């Protein structure tokens, strides 16, 4: 999933081609919470050195 393809903001879940400006600031200290493809709220697990976010339809992204 690339930002260019995104139709939803991954921080607030609203329709947007990529992150909103405000949400982009949040994103520095917050993993994605919504799927960029469908806007579903994702299951997100944060560990000390990684994070994993899973959309029930579009699968997993990690960081």
């Amino acid at each position: 999933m690339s930002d260019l393809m995104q139709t939803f903001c991954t921080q607030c879940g609203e329709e947007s081609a990529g992150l909103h400006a405000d949400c982009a600031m949040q994103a520095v200290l917050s993993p994605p919470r919504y799927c960029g493809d469908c806007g579903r709220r994702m299951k997100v697990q944060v560990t000390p050195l990684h994070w994993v976010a899973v959309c029930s339809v579009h699968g997993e992204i990690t960081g």
Partner: protein
Amino acid sequence: MTTTESPADFLARARAQVLDQGVGLNQDDVLRVLQLDDEWVPEVLALAHDVRMQWCGPTVEVEGIVSLKTGGCPEDCHFCSQSGQFQSPVRAVWLDIPSLVEAAKETALTGATEFCIVAAVRGPDERLMEQIGKAVEAINAEVEINIACSLGMLTPEQARQLSDWGIHRYNHNLETARSYFTNVVTTHTWDERWETLRLVHAEGMEVCCGGIVGLGESLEQRAEFAAQLAELNPAEVPLNFLNPRPGTPFGDLPVMEGKDALRTIAAFRLALPKTILRFAGGRELTLGDLGAQQGMLGGINAVIVGNYLTTLGRPAAADIGMLLELNMPIKSLTKTL
């Protein structure tokens, strides 16, 4: 204290009391630190650093924290994105044991000696206790690290069980001053939290208890909180700065000013000269890189490395690099049995 005491005289008195005798400041004097003008901040930070070096030494305790059960908590702590009572984007999820062991391994590789397993619950139920038992066994089999837990309010039996499993430290934050608590949490009381801390102590586990500043409490209440922590006398105090989370009742509160955060660090060190004072969540936002260094030179002697429970921290390497630069050795492992 007389009202005519100048800041210079006040700091000299604080130095004689806290640095020379190891006796923490009382509530009125903590308030005085919190009210110091900006021009006195470097001096009070230097004093707090001297106090830390004198009574705790140069080593820094590094810890990683991990969420075993995220979100869906029935409690209503107004700062918390894991409460099930607010429209927060955080979904409920459990971490499996292999992932937990992996996280412990990665944490240990950073040099950390502490690994704290956290669950977003009012208190543990049978399923959670069972998972903790399995997690402790699995981590101990593969990783050299001290295991701590933060699982909410405990029954006496649960406290004993955790102690029997070798949990060496238990975190349960009082969060804020007793007089402000009902503005922050309504689903349980400050005194209920205190009772769990008493049980933890009674079972021989180290008490880890801190909170969050910047919740809208007054400076008087912040001083009250420091004094209440000093009365508890915990082994560790994690100091968080509010990171306002979307969807929570405190989501629109302002981020604390860097100078206020630094004054708070110094004040807490001067109230608690001998405790492990840990930089916890929100410091990236409040203090940035430069402020993090100033905090390390202003009384802090422990850090949470890497990410937090639901938010991200500075890269672990940045913090470890900072400690190297500051010539502060990382505390090494002494397994407490």
